[in-house]
């Protein structure tokens, strides 16, 4: 197993959330995109995972926009999942 694999596995665990809605959205997102995440995207995803569940849900449902525009591309993938 490579270092990146373990970084992804760490993110996989941290995608376990307190809100079922987020579990479902992130499960779909990971199935499609996790294996291909690298570099900055890994860092952005990690930051998103640091958010409180309710704030993350608002972003994921498109009810709010991220402060940092650099988050947009990854967030878009989450929204489409």
């Amino acid at each position, binding site marked *: *197993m490579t270092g990146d694999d*373990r970084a992804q*596995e*760490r993110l*996989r*665990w*941290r995608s*376990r*959330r*307190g*809100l*079922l*809605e*987020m*579990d*479902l*959205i992130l499960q779909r997102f990971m199935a499609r995109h996790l294996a291909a995440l690298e570099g900055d995207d890994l860092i952005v995803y990690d930051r998103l995972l640091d958010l*409180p*569940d*309710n704030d993350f849900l608002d972003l994921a*449902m498109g009810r709010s926009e991220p402060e940092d525009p650099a988050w947009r591309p990854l967030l878009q993938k989450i929204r489409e999942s």
Partner: protein
Amino acid sequence: MALPKQTFDAVIVGGGGSGLRAALQLSEAGHHVAVFSKVFPTRSHTVAAQGGIGASLGNMQEDHWLWHMYDTIKGSDYLGDQDAIEFMCRKAAEVVYELEHFGMPFDRNADGTIYQRPFGGHSQNFGERPVQRACAAADRTGHAMLHTLYQRNVRARCQFFVEWMALDLIRDHEGAVVGLIALEMETGQVVIFQTKSVILATGGAGRIFQSSTNAFINTGDGLGIAARAGIPLEDMEFWQFHPTGVAGAGVLITEGVRGEGGILLNAQGERFMERYAPTMKDLASRDVVSRAMDQEIKEGRGVGHEKDHVLLKLDHLGAEVIQKRLPGIREIALKFANVDPIREPIPVVPTCHYQMGGIPTNYYGQVVVPRGDNPAEPVPGLYAIGECACVSVHGANRLGTNSLLDLLVFGKSAGDHLSQWLKGNPQQRDLPKDAADRTLARLDRLNQATTGENVAEVGLDMRRAVQQHAGVFRTGQLLSEGIDKIRVIAERARHTAIQDKSQVFNTARIEALELENLVIVAEATLVSAEARTESRGAQARDDFKERDDRNWLKHSLWSMEGSRLHYKPVNLQPLTVESFEPKVRVY
């Protein structure tokens, strides 16, 4: 086998509302406390709670703890222990004001007092008229509660072990709890925590059902840990269902949708509620609607490939009404059911919401087990609180908003009791030599196995079996078939194999360990439900439609060893007031 070892006064497994409340009480009293959590504490499932915390503050209309007590006992269908219920309802105002003092951003009235919402089942003067009793922080009550308590714990220098999974208790030859074995996810390291006491606060196990409102993390680890340590599980047949969860997802569709005119249809397009509740139809009470839906599915009139759900139709309300009055629902349907309710019906199914049973405790949070003539003897050094515990204040059916209250009252009570107990028991007890053997054997097996059952498949089979055989609509035959199925599934769960053998953040391994806990809870549920030949609260037996107080006014206790059942009496004697005698429950 030399495992690393650390020492504490108290170890709390769980950083949700109940664990954090207990931790605060102990840390502020100066004890050396560790809190374990699989996820960052403020991402515990308590974050999902929106409705509020029940307390008879009387800020809106006159209210009294005795009325709250009556509502709780009636709600429990008389299976709740009246000493614990009195204790909880009397303490409610105190714990809510404490939380306010800690900085909880409650909604307010113009005069500055805490605003209280109406909620089903809350009444004035013993059922006379509704009363507003729920204290909330917008729609983020659980979130606000977790953040408030977490900050306060950090201030009190409580020590957190985040992304650790507790695996097993250590008991000595006298049965006292003397330690905990836990696994650090980041390193895969297994560590022994020698401690004078353990508080289990691991939350519910709603993930045993295929359709569940619970987040993935609610796998009943505390129940598995207790059962493996020889502690029986109480009243596991009682699970609260919500009639309309999105099929295949579990996300809740509020009752409000049917209030606005949404109707339920079966595979034949029939509005079946007209048959079950000719007057109230789709607006009948939760349990009536859930049972009707489940019966339609069981009798083959379900919708979809598996005929496993029914439809909630809204399109006749018109796009404008839906967009204006039910925007959140449309959003949920689009996201989680992939349908636009303006055009298509939403697939829905009765969905597991809350676990009434759990690890048996008294109102100090002490875990109690039968011993000789005593049905409830405390296990030295062991406590349980929150949804994983059965005090029992919820009996056969929980009153809305009483769960968050339960976390606060019994979290605090357990912290206080344990703090006193620690003063009289200052020594660490010795760890038995073989303390970690059985746990390490479980982990070794998983590490060695190269072929075996797939964790996800066994998990799916388990959830399907529980949904099908221990859902809302239950019969003896369904349940006993379910027991046979679950025993086969439990055996498969003992023979899982995972491909990833890494020590670092091995989610596959965690899920295999969680599955072992889930199947224990599933078996306890089916066996307890099959034996209880009556309908009470959340348990609806089609072959025994009535409540049977003569034979069944008692708590079930399921032991893992031999999957045996025994019973203990319900405590009908409150602390200071007169007993509420069982009556027929009508609303």
